[in-house]
């Protein structure tokens, strides 16, 4: 029961983050939303593992924690190197 509630809450959070990724006027808003989405994905997988009573799959959550970080860093590096035209200065 408690895991179901948590899963639902995380899903709601993911939905809101997704909305920000759609709306986000600047590139950085989108990156922020992706970052948050990734964190919540990690939590979702962890909680879902408990929900289905197979909590051995935390490996995937760990991979997400790593990959998410690297993804954000890579995106930032590319944004710094090739600044997107006219996308950065509006908020």
């Amino acid at each position, binding site marked *: 029961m408690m895991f179901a509630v948590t899963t639902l809450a995380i899903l709601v959070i993911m939905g809101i983050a997704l909305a920000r*990724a759609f709306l986000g006027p600047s590139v950085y808003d989108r990156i922020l*939303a992706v970052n948050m989405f990734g964190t919540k994905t990690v939590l979702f997988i962890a909680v879902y593992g408990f929900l289905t009573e197979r909590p051995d799959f935390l490996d*995937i959550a760990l*991979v997400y924690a790593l*990959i998410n970080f690297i*993804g954000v860093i890579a995106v930032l590096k590319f944004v710094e*190197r*090739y600044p997107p*035209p006219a996308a950065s200065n509006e908020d």
Partner: protein
Amino acid sequence: MLVFTTIAIVRLRNLFAIVMLSGIYSLLLANIFVTLDAVDVAFTEASVGAGISTVLMLATIGITGYDIKARSNIRRLVPLIVVSITGAVLVYGTMDMPAFTDAMAPIHQHVAPRYIIDSPQEIGIPNMVTSVLASYRGYDTMGEVIVVFAALVGVLSLIGIRETKVVPNYLEPPARPILQVMAKLMIPFIILFALYVQFHGDFGPGGGFQAGVIFSVAIILYTLTFSQYDGMRLMPPKILKILAASGVLIYGGTGIWTILKGGTFLNYSVLGDTSVAGQHLGILVIEFGVGLTVATTMMLLFFAFVSRGDSKR
């Protein structure tokens, strides 16, 4: 969950070339895979979709530019009609399909029960995905590895790797000290984790494909936070090319080895004293070959794209 994705795709049509959304899309997809019990697939999608493909897409966009000029909007309607008709026909086709999660569906009737019931005894490892991947369908996997290798050869012959001669000035204070310290902390753990995934793939989710991608992600992180010169000095592309080829050779060589031992191609039962031990050894070797090829391929792809972007600026 499924509804989220569809919304994402509907919106993705409106926003132009936003790779961020495709990153989110792949995260969502992996979530769905987890809920559909496909942990190994979610593992792969996590490391490939969110990590490598985003990086490669961004590198390409950096080279080609962000601007999108809209085509004159005369031909919007016809594709929409075509797509709708195709979709409608496909929906009509699904009327005869077995219902979702139906245990009596034909897909679950033929070979699948054998894999599920017999493989833990025959192969001796609990992860059925690994045993099917490496043993029962070893030919398929070998083909896939060769396809990956062929794609690497294609990319290298198309754009190649330009080794940088620019040596970074190590005396200057680094541009991103916090990131570099973090990367130094993280990289050993990532590599350790990749090895864990590689050799624990028999028991939990994981295996050569995932481990290879995770390993290459560590090197990509290093290259991103330090410099391209450092990355290429750590993993020289020449050596990587040889390693990528030798991964495929390990796979094929295992097949030859089994033939020499008196079995058939890629039948590992003859490798050990008992057939279970032989299977175990064979799967380990095969997964190592797969991991080697995938890791080196991903690194080389990354180097190829990034060095192309740098040499143009």
